[in-house]
């Protein structure tokens, strides 16, 4: 174990930093996609339209019952093996959006789709638990006051649900920080992939140690943000 002249600590950190940016991108994009998608799946799962409810049930069961790693690989290869589309045709860009040079490879897109679809299933079940814990009387009060179903959900139910499910969501968010490392199966250059490459080529354990610290710091940051939100919502209890 040790760093020889060919890899200084600063170049190591630079390379890992590049990976960390990708890790952070996967994390944020997954949350932006799966948090709202989870609401829709939960509502579908609780729908009175039986086929929809059954489909969502099946979806949740499948997404939770098969490995995320397998799902990532399947999504990556589906366009080619099922539709015969060359995967490099699915790269987005390069193009300029608002002065920014954007280029998104299919690997990144497939990875984010996989994470969003998988995490939305877990979030949906947490939402469902939260929604079902809201007292009947809240719906009845809203109904008598003339709120539409959409208003009742968005203004009365959802805000209360968010407060109740925050601890459970915290678990998932922290798991997601570490699950981003599964993107290595697609050879996406997120932090863990980069670290593995360095460890293999430089014969040193140090990148693993640094990676552990990075993930830990990342989760501490997530815990901090979740704690702040929890505190903001602690102005009432019911």
């Amino acid at each position, binding site marked *: 174990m040790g760093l020889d002249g060919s890899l200084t600590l600063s170049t190591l950190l630079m390379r890992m930093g590049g990976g960390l940016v990708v890790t952070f991108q996967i994390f944020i994009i997954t949350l932006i996609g799966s948090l709202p998608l989870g609401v829709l799946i939960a509502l579908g799962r609780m729908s009175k339209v039986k086929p929809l409810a059954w489909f969502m049930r099946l979806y949740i069961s499948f997404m939770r019952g098969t490995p995320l790693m397998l799902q990532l690989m399947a999504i990556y290869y589906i366009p080619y093996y099922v539709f015969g589309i060359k995967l490099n045709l699915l790269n987005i860009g390069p193009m300029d959006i608002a002065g920014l040079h954007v280029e998104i490879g299919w690997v990144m897109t497939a990875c984010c789709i996989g994470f969003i679809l998988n995490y939305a299933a877990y979030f949906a079940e947490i939402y469902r638990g939260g929604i079902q814990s809201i007292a009947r009387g809240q719906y009845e*009060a809203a*109904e008598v006051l*003339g709120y539409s179903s959409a208003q009742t959900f968005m203004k009365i139910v959802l805000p209360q649900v968010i407060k109740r499910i925050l601890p459970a969501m915290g678990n998932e968010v922290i798991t997601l920080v570490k699950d981003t490392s599964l993107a290595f199966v697609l050879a996406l250059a997120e932090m863990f992939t980069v670290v593995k490459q360095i460890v293999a080529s430089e014969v040193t354990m140090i990148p693993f140690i640094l990676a552990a610290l990075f993930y830990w710091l990342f989760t501490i940051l997530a815990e901090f943000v979740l704690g702040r939100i929890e505190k903001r919502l602690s102005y009432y209890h019911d």
Partner: protein
Amino acid sequence: MSDTNKLLDLQHARKSFGDNEVLKDISLTVEKGEVLAIIGPSGGGKSTLLRCCTLLETLDGGSLSFGDCVVTTDQGGVAVYGGKDVLKRARTHFGLVFQNFNLFPHYTVMKNLTDAPVSVQKVPKAEAEAKAKQLIGKMGLEGKENMVPCELSGGQQQRVAIARALMLDPDILFFDEPTSALDPELTKGVLRVIRDLAEENMTMVIVTHEMKFARDVADHVIFMDGGVIVEQGLAVDVIDNPQHNRTKAFLLSED
């Protein structure tokens, strides 16, 4: 249409839950300015009757209308409901105060009062807030505007709930055992507020266990048991001088 003073008209209401027939041919009318108290033992159908009137339950049979807003018509013994727009319009005619208040815990007192007028009836926010301030004063809740329900006593919460219902200017206000979740000390404040409303000629239907209050405040009393109206009449007559044995037995047990 025939009688513009008739704010609530319920005829031949029937309702069952499975095999359990909870309402058996109930008819009642409420006139403008009238206070009607519904008394009777638990399980007698009082709450179901109120919930059918406030559209939280659907009738199996019978007709229901608020003024000229016809909610259901009786067609061969089956209650046929109007469309969504009819139900929506019907809801503007009445307000409901629940036993458990059902305030929105994440909203302040002010927001509990103003949110429905602003987001449902599109009343300008400033206008709604001015009206809310007035009602908060009337309910003896000055200074509580920015508190959330969990910071208030049960009695205060129930007064907020009454104010919330009044914000929408209902023609008729329903109360479902408004003081049953309160201890005697807190009950007083809520009953005083309802009494004040009665003096202002607010039309009200009150399901209650407070016999003395019913006699003092209500014009008419209905005694319900086993899904039927056993006895009805002027409040003083029914409560001080009941005719039916079941009413007598119930009133004795309540003392």
